[in-house]
């Protein structure tokens, strides 16, 4: 290594910035979609479970099975399995958009379980009270279940978002762009340890920032 000129001389800062934006883009979009999809799936898991508003064993079992299957597939394998789907949507496997299907399908079931746990923690009595007031199921979902579980939903998406940052790095390795891609191609494969180090530090900063924001919102929401 020719490192006579000082620290980080192999780092191309504009490429690093570009990669950071790509990572943030992939994480941001996938967090948003995972949040919505995970809440829908988790809500269905909760509502169809025994003793709840839409108690339905067969449907519950089917959703539960799908969630469990996608949750158990290692992410790197999921990317490969999803190549046909990705090609169908984006006609390419290169670039940050190509990582999105795998990121979302990998994380939504994971988040759905956290949503379900959050919903189960709501006191059954509160749901009963809403029913006794003549609330429709829609009202119960929007005005009881979601607001009452919001701190759990936010802390769950925080954990999921952090997992998603590391997923983007993995997706980067097979061509999705972002800091993972940069660290692998420019850093690891060329032996430029400073590039790998800087990329890692940026990822750490992103993770800390997500955790901080998540904790802050959770504590603001939690009035218990």
């Amino acid at each position, binding site marked *: 290594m020719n490192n006579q000129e000082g620290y980080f001389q192999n780092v191309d800062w504009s490429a690093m910035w570009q990669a950071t934006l790509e990572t943030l883009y992939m994480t941001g979009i996938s967090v948003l979609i995972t949040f919505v999809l995970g809440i829908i799936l988790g809500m269905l898991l909760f509502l169809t479970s025994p003793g709840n508003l839409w108690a339905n064993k067969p449907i519950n079992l089917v959703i539960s099975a799908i969630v469990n299957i996608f949750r158990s597939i290692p992410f790197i394998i999921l990317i490969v399995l999803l190549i046909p789907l990705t090609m169908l949507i984006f006609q390419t496997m290169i670039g940050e958009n190509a990582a999105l299907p795998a990121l979302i399908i990998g994380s939504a079931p994971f988040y759905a379980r956290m949503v379900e746990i959050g919903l189960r923690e709501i006191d059954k009595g509160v749901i009963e009270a809403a029913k006794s*007031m*003549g*609330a429709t199921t829609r*009202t119960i979902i929007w005005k009881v279940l979601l607001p009452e579980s919001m701190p759990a939903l936010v802390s769950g998406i925080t954990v999921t978002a952090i997992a998603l940052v590391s997923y983007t790095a993995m997706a980067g390795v097979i061509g999705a762009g972002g800091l993972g891609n940069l660290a692998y191609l420019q850093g690891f494969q060329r032996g430029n340890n400073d590039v790998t180090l800087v990329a890692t530090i940026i990822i750490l900063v992103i993770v800390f920032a997500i955790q901080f924001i998540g904790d802050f919102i959770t504590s603001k929401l939690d009035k*218990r």
Partner: protein
Amino acid sequence: MISIKNVRKIFPSKHGLLIAVDEVNLEIKKGEIFGIIGYSGAGKSTLIRMLNGLEIPTDGSVTVAGREISKIKGSELRQARQEISMIFQHFNLLWSRTVSENIAFPLEIAGVKAPERKKRVAELIQLVGLEGREDAYPSQLSGGQKQRVGIARALANNPKVLLCDEATSALDPQTTDSILDLLVDINKKLGLTIVLITHEMHVIRKICHRVAVMENGRIVELGQVLDVFKNPNQPITKRFVQQVTEPEETKETIEHLLERYHSGSIVKLTFIGDSAEQPLITHLIRHHHVTVNILQGKISQTQSGSYGTLFIHIDGDQAEISKAIEYIRSQKVGVEVVTGE
């Protein structure tokens, strides 16, 4: 107002069928405060939940305010529920909403417009005495205040019936009394029919007009509160009545006295209504040659009159004692000679 006919509720359980409510028949009048007392597992919780359709009876019919709750479904049931409010042992408030927002919730459900809602919430806050706590969250309130929010929320849509599910069981005695006073107040002010379930005879004594005693899913005793206090038939009813009339230590005291005094009799006197106001003891000592020793006494107020018990020890000549007891009997006072069983 409420009519329960031949109602049964059977739950499937691991050990076969569980009959939670068995052949219950009840008529509850408009404006009445009706209490159902029983130990846990007696079926009272299931029974009260059938009044707003949270449970559906296996057999029989439940009619509240002219609607057959046990038959209607969907939007008709939801409509009916706005007229049959419920308050709960654990309050069941939404912790994510402030006091005002919790009270506004049933109004939102009923589709009341925002300005109207605001006005009604302010009225209700005043009615239950929570001025100044409008913007507090439930976690910042005491148990009694939480139940006041629960009551305000229950009254929001001007219901015809208020169901109280062990509404004071999680509160300390003093707070219990203030909540009970509030319920009586509401009953008088709004003419609301109140049905409550409890395991505390104190609650029945303090506010109910009529009481039903439940055991193993059946109503074993039913009547005016004062009559039930005066003349409890079932052993379980006697136990409940004792909760209020005889403090814990009475039994021990009496056992102790029976050991100590071998002569004379220990007598339990029961006073109902006006008889509580006669100078009975004075007369007893003046006109009979006996000594009277007052051991313990208590007067309880019920919604329809006072009710008192007094334990005395009468000593003297056996014939005189008998005459004295005869005299007390003639004064419309319940007499029971206590023997050590």
